[in-house]
C-alpha cells in the first residue's frame, strides 16, 4: 500500500519538478506566461504566439513526454521510431521536419496577398531587396561572435527577413536545436515592428522626404496578374532552386486567387488550410523550446542578433528608397522603403502611419504594399541562398 502511494507520488509532475534540473521548467512557464499575455492582452501576433506559448507549456511539463527533439536531430531520422513511440507533438512535428507547414502557410499567404501594387510599380522590387541587408549583416555578426556555426548563423540571420515560415524552414534544416528561440524571436519582433521601425524611419529621412506624395498606381491587367506568379516561380526556380518550396507555394496560392476559376480552393487556402497548419506549426515550434534547449546564453545572443537584423533590414530598405527617390527626381517617399522587410501588412501600415504624422492627407499604404510583398519574395530568395550554400 505504502509502496503504491510512493510510486504514485514519484510519478507526479510535482515530484519530477523538484528533481534535479526540472526547476528550469518554472522559468519556461514564466516565459510562456509572458508570451500568452502579449498574445491575448496586447494582441501581438496572437495567431502564432499563442500556439507557440502553449507548445512551450506542454513540452516543459515535468514527466510529460509529448515531444522528443532528439528524435529529429539525427542526419538519418528514424521515422519508424517516431511512429512507434513518439508523442502527439512528435507526430505533428513531422510537418516541420519535412518542410510541409512553412510551404503550406506560404500557400495561404499567397492566396491572401494582393500583388497588384508590386506589379503596378515593379521598382518596389529593389526596396524589397535592399531590406534583406539585415539578414546578411546579422548572419555575419552571429558568425563573427564565434558562438555559432555558419549554419546556425544563417538561421539567425534569416530572422531579419521578418518572415516566420521562412525562418522556420531555414532553421529546421540548418539548426533544428535553435528552432524555438529563433521562431519566438522572429514572431516577437514582427509584432514589435510598430515600435522598432519608426525611430529609424524618422532618423534617416528628412521632413521634406516624409511629405512626398507619390503618383497614383496604374491599373493592372488581368493577364499581368495571371502571368506574375508563374514568372516569379520560374525565375526564382532557375536562380535559387532551394527557394522554390516557399516561392512556388506562395505564387501558387496567388494564382488560385487571381485566376478567377478556383474560388473554392483559394478560400480554403486562405482560411481552413492556413488556420489548421498555423495551429500545428505553432504548437510544435513551441514544443522545441524545452528548458534545456532554450535557457542558454546563446538564446540571448539570438534575440540580440534578431533585433539587429530587424533594424538593419529597416535601414537597408529606407536607404534603397532614398537612393531611388534621388534618382527618380523626388517621386518616391523613402518611408515606403522600410516596408521592404516582409511582415505583411504590418510594415506597410507603419509606413502609412508615419507618413500621415507629417501629412494627414498623404496615403502611402498601397505604395508601401509593393516593397512589402517584394520583401516576402526577397526573404525567400535569401533563404534559398543559405540553403543552397555548401557549408
Amino acid at each position, binding site marked *: 500500500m505504502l509502496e503504491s502511494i510512493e510510486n504514485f507520488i514519484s510519478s507526479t509532475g510535482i515530484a519530477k519538478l523538484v528533481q534535479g534540473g526540472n526547476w528550469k521548467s518554472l522559468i519556461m512557464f514564466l516565459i510562456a506566461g509572458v508570451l500568452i499575455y502579449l498574445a491575448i492582452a496586447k494582441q501581438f501576433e496572437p495567431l502564432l504566439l499563442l500556439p507557440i506559448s502553449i507548445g512551450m507549456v506542454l513540452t516543459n511539463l515535468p514527466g510529460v513526454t509529448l515531444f522528443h527533439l532528439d528524435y529529429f536531430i539525427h542526419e538519418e531520422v528514424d521515422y519508424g521510431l517516431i511512429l512507434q513511440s513518439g508523442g502527439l507533438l512528435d507526430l505533428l512535428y513531422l510537418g516541420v521536419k519535412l518542410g510541409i507547414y512553412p510551404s503550406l502557410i506560404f500557400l495561404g499567404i499567397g492566396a491572401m496577398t494582393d500583388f497588384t501594387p508590386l506589379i503596378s510599380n515593379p521598382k518596389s522590387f529593389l526596396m524589397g531587396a535592399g531590406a534583406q541587408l539585415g539578414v546578411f549583416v546579422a548572419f555575419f555578426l552571429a558568425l563573427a561572435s*564565434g558562438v555559432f556555426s555558419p549554419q546556425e548563423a544563417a538561421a539567425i540571420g534569416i530572422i531579419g527577413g521578418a518572415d516566420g515560415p521562412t525562418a522556420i524552414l531555414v532553421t529546421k534544416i540548418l539548426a533544428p536545436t535553435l528552432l524555438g528561440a529563433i521562431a519566438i524571436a522572429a514572431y516577437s519582433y514582427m509584432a514589435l515592428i510598430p515600435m522598432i521601425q519608426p525611430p529609424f524611419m524618422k532618423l534617416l529621412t528628412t521632413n521634406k522626404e516624409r511629405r512626398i506624395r507619390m503618383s497614383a498606381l496604374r491599373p493592372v491587367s488581368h493577364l499581368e496578374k495571371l502571368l506574375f506568379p508563374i514568372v516569379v516561380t520560374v525565375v526564382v526556380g532557375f536562380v535559387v532552386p532551394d527557394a522554390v518550396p516557399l516561392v512556388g507555394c506562395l505564387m501558387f496560392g496567388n494564382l488560385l486567387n487571381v485566376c478567377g476559376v478556383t474560388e473554392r480552393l483559394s478560400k480554403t487556402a486562405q482560411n481552413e488550410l492556413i488556420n489548421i497548419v498555423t495551429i500545428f506549426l505553432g504548437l510544435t515550434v513551441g514544443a522545441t523550446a524545452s528548458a534545456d534547449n532554450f535557457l542558454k546564453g546563446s538564446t540571448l545572443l539570438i534575440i540580440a542578433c534578431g533585433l539587429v537584423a530587424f533594424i538593419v533590414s529597416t535601414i537597408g530598405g529606407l536607404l534603397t528608397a532614398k537612393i531611388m527617390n534621388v534618382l527618380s527626381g523626388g517621386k518616391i517617399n523613402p518611408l515606403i522603403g522600410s516596408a521592404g522587410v516582409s511582415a505583411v501588412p504590418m510594415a506597410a501600415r507603419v509606413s502609412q502611419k508615419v507618413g500621415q504624422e507629417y501629412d494627414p492627407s498623404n496615403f502611402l499604404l498601397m505604395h508601401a504594399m509593393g516593397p512589402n510583398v517584394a520583401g516576402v519574395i526577397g526573404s525567400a*530568395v535569401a533563404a534559398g541562398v543559405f540553403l543552397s550554400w555548401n557549408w
Partner: protein
Amino acid sequence: MNIGNYRALLDTTAMPLNERLLEGLQVFVIGMVTVFVVLAFLWLVMAIFRMLFYTVPNKKKNTENEDAQVVKVEDVPAVENIPLATSPVPGDPQLVAVIAAAISAYHASTGNTLPFRVVSYRRSAGAGGWCGAAEKKSN
C-alpha cells in the same frame, strides 16, 4: 545522439576566426548580389509585361467615348417601353404590385380621393418595410 553531440557535428570552433569571417563575407556579398539580381530581373520582366499587356488609357479617346455615350442616351427607349422581365432587378410580381400600389395610393392620397388616411404606423423588426423588402430581395 544527444543535442550536445549534434552541436559538436556543426563544428563551431574548429574554423579559425579569419576563415569564418572570410566565409561570412563571401556569403554576405554573394547573398545580397543574388537577392538584388533576382528581384531586379523580376522588375525587368514586369516592365516588359507592362509594355506588352497594358495599354495606357487615352484621355482623348475616353472623351470621345463619353460623347458617344451621351448620344446613346437619346436612343434609350422610354420607361414604359421596357419590358418588366428585363428590369435591372428581376422582380417578384407581387412585390412590384405592392410597390406600384403604394406609390399609387400615395399619389392618390394627396388629393384626398381615398376612403382612408394614415393615422399611425410602426416599424417592424427594427427596419422600415421598404428596407426590409429590399434586404429580403437582395438575399
